[in-house]
Every structure is written in structure tokens, then in C-alpha cells.
């Protein structure tokens, strides 16, 4: 940072309004807390955008036959719902948490590259606009599924180019964000904060950031090849020109599998912070948690083939990917075991963050087990592209990643806002979510086992009953999220002042060393960690 800005920083400390006001504050901010806040609100907006698409899908599937949307639009809905939720809702939410928490938890004043941080956020916004705007161009939004498989995607209209550009921008943003996070964690830790003393959320994000740096460029390469196949006469994936559509699947899933861990590892970190706080016991097996996270990340690079068992793979390849996938259950099992062991004989209380965390452990484990079922090659070949797969990944992404995001928001809201949320409304939000979610997604296991294919707007009559239940659950779940929005706003506007550390068992730096709300500038002199 230049000397001029350095001096300016100091000058600003004297007055209280130490930043520009209005829109300029948010456009030009380099403060990690402001950027974290923007990421979190952005993520919530995209969550509702993707949620509206999900409810349109479930409205169409409430009954057999075509009711509300035509099949092309239905395909666009499933595609953009997936892209928006993955790249617009879950990932930015985690980056928001990272921005808010990592500097405070390692005792740093801010992120290592504050201006790049500003860029990372403001790149995400145009990318999201491109994605959503693609609904309004001729031909409609991308309709190939979020995996963007050729040859279908090579044939569609301009919306594909908008989607590809959006993916490029999001990739650049993620890489910049990851560089920032890794540098902050490696170089800016307070004295005494050794790597093995870092809170697990920091550890999981460090590993996630390395995953992002390793695989986002691969995705960028894959979509660039799609783009040149579409417009510049190359034939990477075009069989007529000597290419191979299957190759796209290999490249995509080399990115795609680590990507699912990018979405879930920070969740492990959040749950590892919340469970000890409400069990009033230190986390059981801290070191094994770190090693398990690293093992999951490393294994994620050698299991991509399990997404494509049906493409025609040698038996040796199928066996390799099957066993490698099952191997991931070992470190994941270590984590689940450690969370349960942390709760064992703890003096537990069940505030909203704890409820969401326990919900996470139960439901994520169900998703993990259905993942093990799908890892078995011959089973996967019959269940491939059925609703069983849809049920599986919604159990790990909604009741996994999303529930832990809710848990984290309720847990840190007192630190973010200085106010306490309403415990009664928080619990209501949890119970409505967990009941709505299970009604929506558990029947999809049955539908998949009975052979209902995914991404089709109509279905055979024997699937009608469970689809009706699934849609009812989806609407309960969807509308309950308005309560979450209300809870956050109600919390900010309330006058329930939060204590500096409102949780008895929370012991990381942001609780023990900083007031609530956390001041705009924190840890300008690094704390000493013993």
C-alpha cells in the first residue's frame, strides 16, 4: 500500500465517519467488513432469485402434464437455477463469511489486498446480471443444465455466450478472492497464531481457496473451448471435426468435483465453530479435523469420473473412481464423528445456530450416504440422471451448505450488527426450513428409485403422488426463507443490544477481543495469541 493511502488511513481514524457515505462508500470500499456485508446481501438476493426459479420448477411438477411453462423454458429454469445457486448464492455467501471473519479470526487488520478485494466483489455483480439477463435474449437462457454439456450448448443462441462470459468473470473474481484469502492467512496472522492454532473456519477456507485456485482456471479453459467451438471454428468437442463431447465432461468434472467441496468445506468450518460453542466443550480432535479437510480436498481431484460412469469407461476406470469415491467417506466420517464426540457429555443448549448445525450434521450425513450409494458403479448406472441424484445433491447443498450458512449468520449476527436476533423467530425459521426441506427432497429419493428422470417438465402418472408432496414441501421451504430475511432485518432494527460475547462457549478472537458490533477497523495492532 502506498504511503499516501497509509497517511490517509491514519487521518481517518480520528473522526467517526471514517468512510465516504452513500453509494460511494459501497462502490469504493476496501474494508473487509463492508465487502463481506455486500457479498452476504448479494448472496441473499441471488438465493431468492434462484429460489423463484426453483418454485417455478416445482409448480410445473406439482401435477403431470404441462401447466405453467413450456419445456424449453423449463430447461432454462433448471440450468440457471443451478448456476445461480452455485455461483451466485452459496459461493458468494462463503466469500462474504471469509471477508468478515478471516481477518478477525487471525488477528489481522484487513485482507492482504483490499483493493483487489473490492474488485472481486464488483466483478460478481455484472456476472450475475449477465446470467439473469440471458432469460430475455432471443432463444432464452442456457438450457443445457448447469454442467453446460456440448453438443447441446454449442447449438443454442447468444445466451450461451452470456453464460460463458459470466463464468469467466466469476472465475476471475474467485481466483482474486482466493489469492487474497491465502495471502491473508499465510502472511497476516497475529503473533502467536500458529497454523495449528487457527480456528477451523480459517483452515477450511485456506484449503478451499487452494482448491479454487487449482480448478477455476480449468473451468475457464473448458468454457473457452466451448466459446471457440461456437465461434472460431475449433472442434474440441465437435465430433464432426474430430472432437469428442465426452472430453468436455472429463474437463468439466475435473473442476466440478472439487467445486462441490469448495461449497461444503467452509460449512465444515462453520459447524466446527458452532458445535463447541453450544456444547461448551473444545472441539474434539482439532488436528484430525485439519487433516481430514486436507484429505478430502486432495481426494476430490481423483474422483471426477463418478459423475460420468455411463459414458463408456473401461472397467478398471470405473473401479478406480468407485473406490476413490468411497475413500472420501473416511475423512468425512472422521469429521462427523468428531462433531458428535464434541457434543458428547457437553452441556448443550439449542439456540438457532446450534439447531441449524445439528440439522446440518443429520441431513448432510443422509446426503453423504446417498452419495455412497451413487458411488457404486452398477447402482449409479441405473440411477444416473434420475431424481435420486437430485435428492442426493440437494441434501448436501441445501441441508449441508445452506443450513450451515444460516447457522453461521445467526451465530455471527450479534458480532456483525451488535444486536441479537429474535430467538423465537430464529427457531421458527429452523423448524419450517427443516420440515419443508425434508418434505420437498426426501420423496425425490423414491421418485429416483422408481425411475423418474431429472430435467423433464412432465412425468408418468405413477410419479404424481410424491411429486405433489415434493412441491408442497418446496413451497413451505421457499416461503419460510422470507422469514429469514425478516429475521435479519428485524435483528438489525431491534434494540436488543448484543453482548461482546453473547455465546458462553465461543472463544475465537472476534468474540474474546472485539466489541459487538465489531468496529469498522479492528486489530490495527495485532493481538498476541498465547
Amino acid at each position, binding site marked *: *500500500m502506498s504511503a499516501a493511502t497509509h497517511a490517509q488511513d491514519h487521518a481517518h481514524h480520528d473522526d467517526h465517519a471514517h468512510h465516504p457515505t452513500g453509494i460511494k462508500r459501497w462502490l469504493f470500499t476496501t474494508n473487509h467488513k463492508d465487502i463481506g456485508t455486500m457479498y452476504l446481501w448479494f448472496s441473499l438476493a441471488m438465493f431468492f432469485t434462484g429460489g423463484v426459479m426453483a418454485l417455478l420448477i416445482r409448480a410445473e411438477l406439482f401435477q403431470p402434464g404441462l401447466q405453467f411453462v413450456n419445456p424449453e423454458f423449463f430447461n432454462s429454469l433448471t440450468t440457471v437455477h443451478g448456476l445461480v445457486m452455485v455461483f451466485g448464492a452459496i459461493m458468494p455467501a462463503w466469500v462474504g463469511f471469509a471477508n468478515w471473519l478471516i481477518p478477525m479470526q487471525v488477528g489481522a487488520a484487513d485482507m492482504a489486498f483490499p483493493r483487489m478485494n473490492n474488485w472481486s466483489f464488483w466483478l460478481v455483480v455484472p456476472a450475475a446480471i449477465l446470467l439473469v439477463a440471458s432469460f430475455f435474449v432471443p432463444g432464452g437462457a442456457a438450457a443445457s443444465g448447469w454442467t453446460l454439456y456440448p453438443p447441446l450448448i454449442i447449438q443454442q443462441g447468444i445466451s450461451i455466450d452470456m453464460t460463458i462470459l459470466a463464468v469467466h468473470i466469476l472465475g476471475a473474481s474467485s481466483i482474486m478472492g482466493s489469492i487474497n484469502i491465502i*495471502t491473508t492467512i499465510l502472511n497476516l496472522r497475529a503473533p502467536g497464531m500458529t497454523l495449528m492454532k487457527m480456528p477451523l473456519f480459517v483452515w477450511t477456507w485456506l484449503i478451499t481457496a487452494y482448491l479454487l*485456485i487449482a480448478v477455476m482456471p*480449468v473451468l475457464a479453459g*473448458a468454457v473457452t473451448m466451448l466459446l471457440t467451438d461456437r465461434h472460431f471454428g475449433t472442434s474440441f468437442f465437435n465430433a464432426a471435426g474430430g472432437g469428442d463431447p465426452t472430453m468436455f465432461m*472429463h474437463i468439466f468434472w*475435473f473442476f466440478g468435483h472439487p467445486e462441490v467441496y469448495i461449497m461444503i468445506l467452509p460449512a465444515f468450518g462453520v459447524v466446527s465453530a458452532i458445535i463447541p460453542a453450544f456444547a461448551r466443550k473444545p472441539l474434539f480432535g482439532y488436528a484430525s479435523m485439519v487433516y481430514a479437510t486436507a484429505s478430502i480436498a486432495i481426494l476430490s481431484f481423483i474422483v471426477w469420473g463418478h459423475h460420468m460412469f455411463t459414458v463408456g469407461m473401461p472397467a478398471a476406470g470405473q473401479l478406480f473412481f468407485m473406490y476413490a469415491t468411497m475413500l472420501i467417506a473416511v475423512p468425512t466420517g472422521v469429521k462427523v464423528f468428531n462433531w458428535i464426540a464434541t457434543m458428547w457429555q457437553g452441556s448443550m443448549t439449542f439456540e438457532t445456530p446450534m439447531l441449524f448445525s445439528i440439522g446440518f450434521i443429520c441431513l448432510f450425513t443422509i446426503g453423504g450416504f446417498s452419495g455412497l450409494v451413487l458411488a457404486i458403479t452398477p447402482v449409479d448406472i441405473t440411477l444416473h440422471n434420475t431424481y435420486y441424484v437430485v435428492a442426493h445433491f440437494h441434501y448436501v447443498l441445501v441441508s449441508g451448505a445452506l443450513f450451515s450458512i444460516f447457522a453461521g449468520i445467526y451465530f455471527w449476527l450479534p458480532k456483525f450488527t451488535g444486536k441479537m436476533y429474535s430467538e423465537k423467530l430464529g427457531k421458527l425459521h429452523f423448524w419450517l426450513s427443516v420440515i419443508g426441506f425434508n418434505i420437498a427432497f426426501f420423496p425425490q429419493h423414491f421418485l429416483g428409485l422408481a425411475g423418474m428422470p431429472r430435467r423433464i417438465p412432465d412425468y408418468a402418472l405413477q410419479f404424481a403422488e410424491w411429486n405433489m408432496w415434493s412441491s408442497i414441501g418446496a413451497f413451505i421451504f421457499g416461503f419460510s426463507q422470507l422469514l429469514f430475511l425478516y429475521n435479519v432485518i428485524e435483528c438489525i432494527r431491534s434494540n436488543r443490544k448484543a453482548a461482546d460475547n453473547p455465546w458462553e462457549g465461543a472463544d475465537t478472537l472476534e468474540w474474546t477481543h472485539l466489541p459487538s458490533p465489531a468496529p469498522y477497523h479492528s486489530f490495527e495492532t495485532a493481538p498476541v495469541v498465547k
Partner: protein
Amino acid sequence: MDAAIAARNRETMTKLLVISVAMLGFGFAMVPMYRQICESLGITQSRVVGATNTQVDASRSVTVELLASSGGLPWTFDALEREVKLHPGQLVTVNYRVVNTLGRPVTAHAVMNAAPSNAGRYIEKQACFCFSNQTFAAGEEKVMPVVFLVSPRAPKDMTTISLSYTFFELPGGTS
């Protein structure tokens, strides 16, 4: 932030940028790697060549006698083989021949007949000259294939089938 830390941060960023660019390169390097692996393992080819028909019932044989009837057209119409012996489910190709000795262009349509009378439903034709009208120039000779199989569902006592074609000239001589 003091200069030493800023320099260290820049160094970390450079390393991480190098990794990103290398991984972008790796994404593209997967293209030749993929080709090479598929080629050396013969994966792409074996899937196509190795495909076998599991529907063939090799436990029994059916003799199909090939008959041709001119149906009032005094030209040459015959089968190149008298009969063909096959397993149910096995795809075979047989050939019929027409020599238009009438001295004028003729458009005609062939109609299939099979004996015993219920055998027709077990003959599954993939390609046949009887699917469309055929036009012959004066003096033209044409060899025409029939690609078919006898369904494995054919009754066990059906050991011989007579497959017969009859040509009928279309009025007006046009298709």
C-alpha cells in the same frame, strides 16, 4: 501495513498467480492427454467394435426359402440365393435381381408374402426394396438387397419359412 509485509504479500500473490496460470494451461493440456490415453487404451474404438448383439438365439436355426414371382410382368425376377439358413435374431442380407426385358421403362411395387401364414409377423425387415416404388429403365438390371432378421420370438416349430415377393406394375408407369 509495513513494506516488508507488503513485499511478502506480493511474493505470495505472484506464486499463486503462477499456479492459476499453470492450471489454466493444464485445462488445455487435458485435450491431448485425453486423446493419448483413449488411443493407447483403445477406449473409443472398442466401445463401438465390441458391441455385440445378445439377442441372437444360437440354439436353433431357421431356413428361409427365397421365392420371387413376376406377377404378370413377363420379365426376369429372381433371388440370387435359393435359401438362407440363419439363427433367430441374426441380421442377414439377401439379394433379389430384376432384369427389365420389356423394352420400356417400368415402375412397379413389390409385395411380400410369407408362409406359413403366421410367419410374416416374425420377419423384421431393416431395409427392403419393397419399402418404395422401383423404377427400371428399359433393359436395366438391378440387384436389390433385403436386410432382415427372424425374431427370436418365432415359435420353435417354425423351422422353415418361405419368403416370397411379387412385383405389380403401377398404372401410368409413374411413381
